[in-house]
């Protein structure tokens, strides 16, 4: 059995106790990558030499007592839209091929300071734009549970790497469900924190007002430990929040007695896979058995969420991605005549189709004469969605629902209908619009093969309640560890 079958916290304990060395854990991860990743394509960059030398350093610091944290010496991976000092960061785009940041993202830096060992950078939909991890310039990622299926996206590389046991945990980012949906497709756990909890400094922006960095791991305990490490106020990010309640691992106990849990009835209607619906209701039943009070209710506005999300995300993306112009870094076209032609050719060659589509969409919804009809309207919908969550959380501690309408589709089954594709995010985008935290947790397996996950949503800054509910559900489902 590979050491990578252990959870991150187990590995951390084994390393700290001297049972295994940090270098052995890293070797096990590198071996697993070498063996399995040619098929999965979950990594864009792997730097074994760097990882081994980091492991040596961590080992020394652990032995000298300088490093005592639960993640010390444990290998991990980071989504390729998070800057890593000295390690190529491409966002899965030809535009950034060869881009080596001089500093690490704050979340990555905090993990490194806690003794984490970075194995490499994981594959993703280009700039986070997609829900299949198929739009990467580095090729599509395959689902390790069944390689005929997509892993979901955009953090599909991180989720596949964890699900395949290449690393015990990884960082992902969630702009419209990009942690939660691939977690559910790959059968792993992940948290999208409250907006402002984890610094976005060093995250190459897609939808600035929507996205958060979060953990992906085999179970909720690992997720809580990682989130605890990366949640910190950062003066370099204006939207970063000062929080005192970030001792998430303290919430890891199995007690949901009296917890009020609401299931949005309107999320269980037409378009939802029958077995996924059953899994949500079954999760509700298990929580009821453990003492929670579970009710169905009307959340509303589901039909507007995806539209509002795509308008806002694309508007922000179009602007955020305008810095990729070939002037200062990244790709510059070889032949051009004049500055405008250089912009046009560099961006035409550097961006993939989905990125271009969203830039055009974003430019359109902000352009003179359309701003009110699209962007402003979308912001109004966003406000209404936030209001409806506020009302819901006045009555319920946690909302339970599906992560996606279906389980992971086959790579060959994918639709060319963009709207249909975008509607795959219908249950996840609301949390991003409202800024609330969400957890995706595997609860079962679909008769067609892929895992089924459910989603737990909480009010802003209520990750601890959410983690407690998720931990309890995880116990009820009898799961622990990877694979």
């Amino acid at each position, binding site marked *: 059995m590979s050491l990578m079958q252990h959870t991150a916290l187990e590995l951390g304990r084994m390393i700290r106790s001297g049972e295994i060395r940090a270098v052995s854990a890293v070797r096990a991860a590198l071996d697993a990558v070498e063996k399995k990743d040619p098929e999965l394509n979950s990594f864009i960059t792997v730097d074994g030499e760097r990882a081994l030398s980091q492991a040596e350093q961590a080992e020394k610091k652990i032995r000298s007592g300088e490093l005592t944290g639960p993640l010390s010496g444990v290998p991990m991976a980071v989504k390729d839209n998070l800057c890593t000092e000295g390690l190529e960061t491409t966002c899965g785009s030809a535009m950034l091929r060869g881009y080596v940041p001089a500093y690490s993202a704050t979340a990555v830096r905090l993990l490194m300071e806690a003794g984490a060992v970075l194995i490499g950078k994981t594959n993703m939909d280009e700039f986070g734009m997609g829900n299949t991890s198929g739009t990467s310039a580095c090729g599509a990622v395959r689902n390790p549970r069944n390689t005929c299926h997509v892993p979901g996206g955009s953090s599909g590389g991180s989720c596949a790497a964890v699900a395949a046991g290449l690393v015990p945990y990884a960082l992902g980012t969630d702009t419209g469900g990009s942690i939660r949906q691939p977690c559910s497709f790959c059968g792993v756990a992940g948290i999208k924190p409250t907006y402002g909890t984890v610094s976005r400094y060093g995250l*190459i922006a897609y939808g600035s007002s929507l996205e958060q960095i979060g953990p992906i791991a085999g179970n909720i305990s690992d997720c809580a430990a990682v989130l605890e490490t990366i949640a910190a106020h950062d003066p370099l990010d204006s939207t970063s929040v000062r929080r005192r309640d970030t001792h998430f691992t303290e919430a890891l106990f199995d007690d949901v007695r009296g917890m009020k849990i609401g299931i949005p009835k309107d999320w269980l209607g037409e378009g939802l896979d029958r077995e996924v619906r059953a899994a949500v209701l079954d999760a509700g039943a298990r929580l009821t058995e453990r003492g929670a009070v579970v009710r169905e209710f009307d959340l509303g506005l589901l039909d507007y969420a995806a539209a509002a999300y795509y308008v806002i995300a694309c508007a922000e993306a179009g602007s955020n991605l*305008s810095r990729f112009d070939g002037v200062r870094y990244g790709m510059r076209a070889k032949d051009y005549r004049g500055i405008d032609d250089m912009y046009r050719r560099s961006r035409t060659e550097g961006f993939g189709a989905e990125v271009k589509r969203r830039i055009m969409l974003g430019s359109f919804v902000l352009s003179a004469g359309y701003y009110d009809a699209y962007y402003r309207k979308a912001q109004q919908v966003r406000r209404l969605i936030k209001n409806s969550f506020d009302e819901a959380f006045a009555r319920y501690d946690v909302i339970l629902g599906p992560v996606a309408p279906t389980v992971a589709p086959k790579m060959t089954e994918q639709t060319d209908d963009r709207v249909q594709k975008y509607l795959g995010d219908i249950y996840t985008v609301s949390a991003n619009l409202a800024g609330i935290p969400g957890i995706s947790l595997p609860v079962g397996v679909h008769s067609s093969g892929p895992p089924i996950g459910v989603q737990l949503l909480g009010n802003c800054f209520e990750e601890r309640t959410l983690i407690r509910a998720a931990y309890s559900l995880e116990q009820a489902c009898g799961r622990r560890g990877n694979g």
Partner: protein
Amino acid sequence: MGDSYETVIGVEVHVELATKTKIFYGCSTAFGAAPNTNICPVCTGQPRALQVLNKKAVEYAVAVGLAVGCKINRRSAFDRKNYFYPDNPRNYQITQLYEPVCRDGALAVQTEGGKKQVRIREIHLEEDAGKLVHDDRAKLSVVDFNRSGVPLIEIVSEPDMRSAEETVAFLGLLRQTIQYLGASDCRLNEGSMRVDVNLSVRRAGADTFGTRTEMKNLNSFRAVARAVESERERQIGLLEAGKCVVQETRRGDDAGGRSFVMRAKEDAGDYRYFPEPDLVDLIISDDWIREIGKKQPEFRTERAKRLVKEYGIPEYDAEIITDSRHMADLFEAVCALGSPPKKVSNWLMGETMRLLKERGMEPEDIRFSPEHLSALIAMAERGEINGGVAKTVFAAVFDGDVDPAAYVAGKGLASVSDEDALSAVIRQVLADNPQSVKDYLGGKERALGFLVGQTMKATKGRADPALVNALLLSLMK
């Protein structure tokens, strides 16, 4: 013909704030550093960078707002203005479109036509862009990002001005106010104050505005005045010829006073403004405003009064000296070194003003140190140099901030005040000009002036003229 038209003028003034660091990050704003040395991930638009607002920039904006009678918005917000240009590192500029920090102020400007209120619509905070440098020979353009992210305020007036005189008076008062606040040095030639003029003409008495044009690249108040005059004439000429004024941006040609089309309205970009998601709303509390209000400095009127009271200089002098904060600061600095205030004020109002005008400079361009003016005044007072020499030395101080004592010694300009030596020179002059001596003794007063002149010439201008006069008279007796 032109008299039947009214000129309608509004201005947009960009002012670089005197913060030590940039508006959204900690790198320096120092002017004149080597290209791309005052830069950071934020102001070069690196993919990972995020912005954090500089508190001092907000304080300056609020201070200017208070000084020009604006309402301070308790909640304002930033927006992105999207356009591609290589000096714009993110290809969007962070500015305030929807909720500026200050609104609804006014300045009372004084012109020969009397006092007039010019309303200020808003003041908003934004970031400056980098600078493009074009090398035509190498067919190359390079970007210097030192200026990228320098905090700016843009002050937008209502179209309340009607003449070049009013426009320049408004701009002058605005600049004076901002300089007194220390919020900016407002140097037009270095670009720390940039003026865009919007101008339209209409038939006198009309109640709608004509089509306006915008003029940019005006790097002195004189250029502003010239641009207003010539654009007014150009627009009236078009209307008189039965043509239409086209809405466009024109670029001033400082040398010829003409202007050229920079950009027609059709080319004006669609900037796709939207709220900046990386910055939170700017909340300004009543307490903060009160605190900034308490720190407002002494403005021109109070300072002029104080100078009269404290230094005993005439009101007239005080008015002139306080017109520029820089000049007033210089005055007090020289006085503090022990120079007689009236002498200092004479030097500033006389030679300093003359040289500024001659060199086409503003008071802010003065580079000489108070110590050197003070030393010069002391040397003149002690009679070590005469008045004429003092002016020569002052010019050297003004241009190169030289040490006057060293300069006088080096050039051999010290007064000849040794009576014996001077008497010898005068005896020679008298001997060489017997006719003039005869004329003077015969009652022709003018001959004395000639003899004084000859003596000064013989001493290369270094003699004390009073002593020369006295010695001449006594030697001719």
